[in-house]
């Protein structure tokens, strides 16, 4: 009867899929260390959320460039998510040949917890292994109805601020630190200032993209704190006639570093390609792509070309917070200053 046939085909299906599955699991990429011209290999770049569009373009450019130089076809797979979550996935076994994350701390954790790359990874490439940088700016509604010009305006009564949760978002940590830096340099007590600022926060999304959606699509909040590149993307996607960017007097220099995950790349035999990929990020071609996507280029000549796009402002690096380990422990760890803002321990 029909029902028995259904059952039987289910069983058959199960066997087939099980067989397929073992194949998929078994044939992880095993490229020879010295891939020959005419062969192909795959790199996995595990990155944070706001770089989706950037790397789509960079990857295509690199693939062309690499094929021309070596004759090897390289395909780059992308994985995006919250920076911390991505780092955790790599630690737990996500096979990243390359990581490009929102903060050095997350790559430090990969080195410390899983020893997949040496602790001094940040010295291996120029400019602290950060081929481009970003900063934190403000996005307001067209005409700036709440007259928001600088960090000090965010603590005014009735101003509604949108920023993600520093616990789950790398960008949100930069937001927090930028506000801290402003308070410190303007004679305000940073803890009180941040308490007042976060009291004005309407929604704490999990990531930068979530916050943008809340601000833009749901129409909540007067000001969005976000990456400069994200602010530019929002203008492009949602209309420069609806929003405008406010550049504060001071902000943070966000170094968003990249690194080859040695252990994984060695096993995949993709080390050379992975290194070439990261080197490529420093070339004028990639720097130009980055600048177009709203990331601040390191290359002086490219930077000069986009000078009017990136407003000059005082930028404070992570060093002035004592480096990431110290900043993390003091501000964002369990029971740290951020938790205290919300009445935590």
């Amino acid at each position, binding site marked *: 009867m029909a029902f028995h046939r259904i059952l039987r085909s289910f069983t058959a*299906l*199960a066997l087939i*899929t099980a067989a*397929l599955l073992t194949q998929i699991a078994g044939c992880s990429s095993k490229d020879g260390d010295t891939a020959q011209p005419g062969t192909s290999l795959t790199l996995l770049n595990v990155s944070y959320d706001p770089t989706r569009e950037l790397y789509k373009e960079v990857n295509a450019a690199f693939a062309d460039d690499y094929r021309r130089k070596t004759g090897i076809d390289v395909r780059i797979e992308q994985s995006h998510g919250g920076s911390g979550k991505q780092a955790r*996935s790599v*630690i*737990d076994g996500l096979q990243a040949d390359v990581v490009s994350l929102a903060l050095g701390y997350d790559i430090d954790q990969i080195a410390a917890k899983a020893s997949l790359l040496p602790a001094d990874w940040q010295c291996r490439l120029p400019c602290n292994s950060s081929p481009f940088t970003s900063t934190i700016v403000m996005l307001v509604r067209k005409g700036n109805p709440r007259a928001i010009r600088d960090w000090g305006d965010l603590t005014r009564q009735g101003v509604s601020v949108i920023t993600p949760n520093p616990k789950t978002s790398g960008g949100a940590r930069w937001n927090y630190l930028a506000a801290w830096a402003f308070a410190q340099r303007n004679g305000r007590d940073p803890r009180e200032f941040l308490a007042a600022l976060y009291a004005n926060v309407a929604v704490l999304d999990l*990531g930068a993209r979530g916050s943008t959606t809340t601000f833009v699509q749901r129409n909540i909040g007067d000001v969005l704190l976000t990456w400069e590149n994200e602010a530019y993307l929002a203008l492009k996607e949602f209309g420069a006639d609806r929003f405008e960017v406010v550049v504060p007097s001071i902000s943070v220099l966000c170094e968003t570093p990249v690194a080859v995950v040695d252990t994984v790349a060695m096993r995949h035999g993709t080390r050379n390609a992975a290194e070439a990929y990261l080197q490529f990020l420093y070339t004028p071609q990639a720097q130009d792509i980055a600048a177009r996507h709203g990331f601040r280029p390191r290359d002086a000549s490219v930077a000069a070309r986009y000078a009017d796009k990136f407003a000059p402002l005082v930028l404070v690096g992570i060093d002035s917070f004592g480096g990431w380990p110290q900043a993390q422990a003091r501000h964002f760890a369990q029971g740290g200053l951020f938790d205290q803002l919300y009445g935590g321990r």
Partner: protein
Amino acid sequence: MQGLATNHGSAGRVLDPGGGFVRRGLIGLALCFVALFLVLPLVAVFHGAFEKGWRLYLAAIAQPEALAAVKLTLLATAIALPLNLLFGLAAGWAITKFRFRGKNLLVALIDLPFSVSPVIAGLIFVLLFGMQGWFGPWLADHDLRVVFAVPGIVLATVFVTLPMVARALIPLMQDQGHDDELAALSLGASGLQTFWRVTLPNIKWGLLHGVILASARAMGEFGAVSVLSGHIAGRTNTLPLHVEALYNEYQFAAAFAVASLLALFALVTLALKSWVEYRTEGKAS
């Protein structure tokens, strides 16, 4: 959930305890609730999907990443379903045909995946098979991948849909008792014959019902799969994860288009389920 079982009452016995006024009032209230909580979210999904027109809708669905996600989702469902079907049959048989100690605990354990937070459902498999977990290093030495690969996604899908078939069968088999089986056995049928010829025909519609709901749930699982997937575009993104990715790329119309595909799957399975119930009611009266 007892109710996963089919409605086995007779459709003919309609008692109308309220007069026209109460009746209309209650129906109206129920319809309002359904409209607000069930219909509108569905309408919102389809509205968002077609906001930018047909062409974009089709383009969103025909994207290679979307197709890869469809394939992966169907694969995970096709593996999880037969496994849980087998489990449901075994569990139903053991629980309803025999008496043993600890049965209540066993039934509670079968229900457990329903109420385990999806975040935890993903995390437990990372704790087992992740590189820092119990079996991770051994698996890596043998070049086997579980987490952040297809097997992990399948595991999560199996876990969250584990109770569904069993849950559909247990109340039904309980209602039916085991007189039919005893009769068949006393007439000399073997155990397997009894199961195949007597039990299975009795429960087939309930079974199908459970399978349909389980497949809908399997295709829609988000939280647990999200933890185990690794989010590699075109490789380890299931449909729900692809929706999230599109949403995060501000491609709202495309995100809703793919979501509407999932909603469509859901509607088709629900229609199928409704048909199964209709068949059952027809048989019963």
